[in-house]
């Protein structure tokens, strides 16, 4: 083939260029590709730019949240197509994203893929083609979850029939699809199981067998109202308990450590004088290494304010059900993340769509990360 001959010629040419025969100046090596340390420094973060204006070209930016050098704080980038969903393993240096592709970009045949990225090389080291049913929606933490000691990946489907795709993420193969009629999302349970929130106000749970098929299901009683002061799906998991804030500021804990979800007693985020404050935003909850819960809050709530930016982050001791800190944000924020170390950074996307970094325990503002080419960063993650 003419093309290949020319290619070889030109590759050869590059070799000649790179050889020391080429002038007495030491030629620099070509072909060098950077790799990343293992594990990543604790304050590296992953910013998910869904690229709302260019959804096929969403990106994940790996950033050093400690860096004040805008040019070098970008450690790497990987793609995530069409509002990807993200999670990462704690026992393997791997990250997982759900992507959707079409054969002609915006049109043509649809292919849904669970893509596996290595943390050392930020390259796609594997993929599992899954049924083209994954829910297309704004990102949350409960579209994609790992269970069974991170052996199974669970994917929420919405066509609008709802189901869960089960993937053997170790052997990288699709196993099964579990219908969850009337229910949505995937909350990880202990063992080989998951739970989903149902429109009727209950929670459904599914135990899987070793082939990833449904072994048994259970259902809680009705414990929330899907219309009046509904629980937010944007729960935070602390020690296997999902804490669901409600639109009006209650908290409903559901313990997922047993074989069936166990609904705990609700309590309130609001104390005396807190009237009108409500949780709100895109990702509204987080937790730190001490098990404290963080909630993004705004004052003067009204019907429809549940995605409004928060002006403060409230910190709760979930054991004692009381607020222990109150962080005033320098700019209102629409989403929140946290690093996973013992002196964690609180990460928020502010209303200018920049990232503001705070020391979580002191609430002190540290710096703003901006101008790294992201369009709409909606989710923030600390490195595992």
């Amino acid at each position, binding site marked *: 083939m003419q093309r290949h001959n020319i290619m070889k010629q030109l590759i050869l040419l590059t070799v000649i260029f790179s050889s020391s025969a080429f002038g007495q100046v030491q030629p620099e090596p070509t072909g060098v590709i950077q790799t990343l340390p293992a594990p990543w420094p604790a304050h590296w973060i992953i910013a998910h730019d869904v690229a709302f204006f260019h959804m096929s070209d969403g990106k994940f930016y790996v950033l050093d949240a400690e860096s004040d050098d805008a040019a070098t704080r970008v450690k790497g980038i990987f793609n995530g197509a069409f509002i990807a969903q993200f999670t990462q393993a704690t026992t393997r240096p791997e990250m997982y994203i759900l992507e959707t592709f079409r054969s002609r970009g915006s*049109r043509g045949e649809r292919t849904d893929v669970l893509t596996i990225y290595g943390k050392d090389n930020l390259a796609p080291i594997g993929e599992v083609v899954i049924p083209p049913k994954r829910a297309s929606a704004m990102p949350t933490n409960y579209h994609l979850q790992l269970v069974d000691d991170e052996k199974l990946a669970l994917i929420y489907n919405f066509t609008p029939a709802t189901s869960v795709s089960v993937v053997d993420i170790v052997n990288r193969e699709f196993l099964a699809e579990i219908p969850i009629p009337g229910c949505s999302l995937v909350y990880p349970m202990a063992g080989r199981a998951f739970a989903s929130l149902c429109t009727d106000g209950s929670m459904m749970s599914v135990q899987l067998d070793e082939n990833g098929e449904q072994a048994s299901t259970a259902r809680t009683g009705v414990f929330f109202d*899907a219309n009046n002061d509904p629980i937010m799906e944007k729960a935070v998991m602390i020690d296997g308990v999902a804490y669901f804030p409600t639109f009006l500021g209650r908290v409903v804990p559901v313990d997922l450590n047993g074989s069936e979800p166990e609904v705990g007693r609700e309590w309130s985020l609001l104390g005396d004088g807190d009237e009108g404050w409500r949780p709100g935003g895109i990702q509204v909850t987080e937790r730190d290494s001490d098990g404290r819960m963080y909630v993004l809050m705004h004052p003067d709530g009204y019907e429809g304010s549940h995605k409004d930016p928060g002006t403060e982050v409230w910190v709760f001791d979930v054991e004692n059900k009381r607020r222990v800190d109150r962080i005033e944000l320098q700019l209102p924020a629409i989403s929140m993340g946290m690093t996973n170390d013992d002196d964690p950074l609180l990460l928020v996307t502010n209303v200018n769509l920049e990232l503001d970094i705070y020391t979580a325990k002191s609430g002190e503002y540290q710096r703003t990360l901006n101008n790294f080419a992201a369009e709409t960063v909606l989710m923030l993650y600390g490195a595992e």
Partner: protein
Amino acid sequence: MKWLDGWLDKTAENTARSISQKTSRRGFLGKVAGVVVGGAVTVPLLPVARSQENPAPREEGDPASCEYWRYCAIDGFLCGCCGGSMNSCPPGTEMSPITWIGTCENPVDGKSYIISYNDCCGKSSCGNCLCQRNEGDRPVYNPRVSNDLNWCLGTSSNTYHCSTAIVIGAALDE
């Protein structure tokens, strides 16, 4: 960036406006809940007003503004800024037959109407007139009233382009 404008509208500088809006929005919750029931897999039973004779609601305002009354639960690009109109799709797109539903109060007659937010699909983000309003919006486990979902379903491509706001009936006044 309209997206940005939308968020900025919600910041402290605009608290005054927020508070004035809040006043009219309070108490709306009950009405919405009365109107919209059911999830994705059940046919909603929508109580609708049957006593009214008007053939179409009288309207005022700028349909290219996020504040226009029909957009009370919209989350996306207004099709009227993309080559379509508030209730039709731009050329070359496909209208999703499956929608999310809002209930919006028309300031001209003070009545509430059921709005079907049909997405136009098959081309990538229009990018113009991004609006996010969430009156009556509910979490994705209540899909029929959730605007976080991409409603490009039942179309040949699920690529989201823009959203329309189509009056499909009058809501029951409670």
